[in-house]
């Protein structure tokens, strides 16, 4: 734990289990928290922060720029590029920005010093200062940009030091999920009692174990006919830290972009969740 600030990742293997619902309502219950939406491919938390002051800045990643006056078309840059992002012809060098990982090999190994770097726009970093309660920081990947992790890393660098952070993560168990979870003090895995939900929860627990991030489970949509997730968690000695019933009322409120925390019926569940999460982090 870094001082008093703690970082909670809200994640799930399966999409649509209620990550954003839990993250936004937990942030409201937490007060003073910064909510960071790292699902930069499909950010949704902003829908719950419509009345705040927004500041946007553009994010870039480095891609090669060839100086044709210095280049002698030797092909060394293409040879050292593991991502096939450069092709050298007799009197032409082609750079494929989408394939570039920005590793800098071409710049480093060009014998003529003909490769420098230029900025390639990858999306926006947005901060929303709300009138009361939590603030939001999020990334919005440019559509057609393939790699989300460079933007995610830049968003993470904007996180205020010393502030408690609730991260809304992308779904899945691949590199983007890892990038959003890896520096957290606790990962809350949101699942649902369906065969899909349970299957993907198992994959997620495997991933957080490898990352050595302590994990607890939040079961959304309880009451659905399906596998007994609570029993599975008990068997694996994973704590179930909260749950929310499968009710049309919740789905309808969420569909209109309403914060579930604001409904008196469900508010206590999130206040209890915030307290349970604090305790869990303290005891870890």
């Amino acid at each position, binding site marked *: 734990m870094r001082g008093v600030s703690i970082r909670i990742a809200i994640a799930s293997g399966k999409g649509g289990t209620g990550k954003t619902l839990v993250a936004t309502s937990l942030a409201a219950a937490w007060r003073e928290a910064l909510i960071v939406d790292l699902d930069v491919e499909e950010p949704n938390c902003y829908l719950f922060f419509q009345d705040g002051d927004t500041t946007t800045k553009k994010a870039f990643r480095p891609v090669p720029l060839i100086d044709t006056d210095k280049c002698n078309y030797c092909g060394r840059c293409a040879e050292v590029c593991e991502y096939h992002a450069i092709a050298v012809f007799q009197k032409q060098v082609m750079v494929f920005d989408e394939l570039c990982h920005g590793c800098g090999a071409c710049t480093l190994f060009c014998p003529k010093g003909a490769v420098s770097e230029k900025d390639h726009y990858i999306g926006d970093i947005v901060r929303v200062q709300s009138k009361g309660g939590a603030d939001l920081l999020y990334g919005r990947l440019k*559509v057609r940009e393939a790699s989300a992790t460079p933007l995610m890393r830049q968003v993470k660098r904007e996180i205020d030091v010393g502030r408690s952070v609730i991260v809304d993560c*992308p779904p899945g168990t*691949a590199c983007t999920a890892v990038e959003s979870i890896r520096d957290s003090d606790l990962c809350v895995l949101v699942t649902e009692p369906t065969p*899909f939900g349970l299957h993907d929860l198992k994959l997620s627990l495997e991933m957080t174990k490898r990352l050595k991030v302590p994990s607890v489970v939040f079961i959304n949509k309880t009451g659905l006919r399906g596998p007994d997730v609570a029993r599975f968690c008990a068997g694996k000695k994973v704590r179930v830290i909260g749950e929310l019933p499968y009710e049309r009322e919740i789905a309808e409120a969420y*569909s209109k972009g309403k914060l579930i925390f604001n409904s008196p019926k469900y508010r206590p569940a999130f206040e209890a969740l915030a307290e349970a999460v604090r305790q869990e982090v303290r005891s870890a």
Partner: protein
Amino acid sequence: MTEIVVLSGKGGTGKTTLLASFAALAKNAVLADCDVDAPNLHLLLKPHVREKGKFVGSKIAHLVGPLCKNCGECVPLCRFDAIKVIGSQHVKKVAIDERLCEGCGVCSRVCRYKAITMEDRVVGEWFVSDTRFGTMVHALLEPGAENSGKLVAFVKQKAKLEAKRLGRSIVLVDGPPGIGCPAISVLSGANLAVLVAEPTQSGSSDFGRIAELARGFAVPAVLIMNRYDLNLNMTEVIELQAKEAGIVPLGRIPHDEAVVNAMADGRTVMECGSGKATEAIEQTWNAVLRVSGAAVG
């Protein structure tokens, strides 16, 4: 051969449930599950694996301990912060964090002691299987692995080869959520993108971005509203949004407990008698076939 891919941007809108139902209706399709880091189609189709293999995604830097002089020259050159100096002030050691390595090979090239080698990294496993609805190609990415886009491309390619071999005219692809590299990999070369959306504010936001991606890659797309009756107003908003983007709203599937129950039993709703959802799905599938121009047989 017609390649029909199901995508959504947002997760949990019902891609897999819908695709499994399409699989039950299609008579001549090869199926591919391209949600390689959280695959679910196999839970409904219960495949019998016929063929499998390891998938090498990229290279990974490997430190040959005895050769390393801990000079640290490679450390600042790694753009992915994957090489760190660990230990105390007196005993410094260079260590590679394999989770962060992207396999660029810069460290290996600059190391004057040849202490870093680049090794193949197995990032997952692929399978060709038999199901009650025909051949299915699927995969499982190692938890936390990179290069899911490459594995997606591999699965799709394998499915196409199977279709060719078996004389099937349709490849039906279940896609991942999001709009990043795996989704791009699914879209590339597809004949029709079936975009599944749910009638929520998030659903509208996410549909807008996947629709823009499909247009960016010049793949014709259609919209299917799932559980449309949850919020009829939002259904109309998203359908209008689709029309403005040149995407045809092709169908509406109502909320139906029969779908949830079928899933709990590990089946598709099409195998559980007829109801309001099954009728809508059948109509939608016929419309998809018509729009895609796929040969029916």
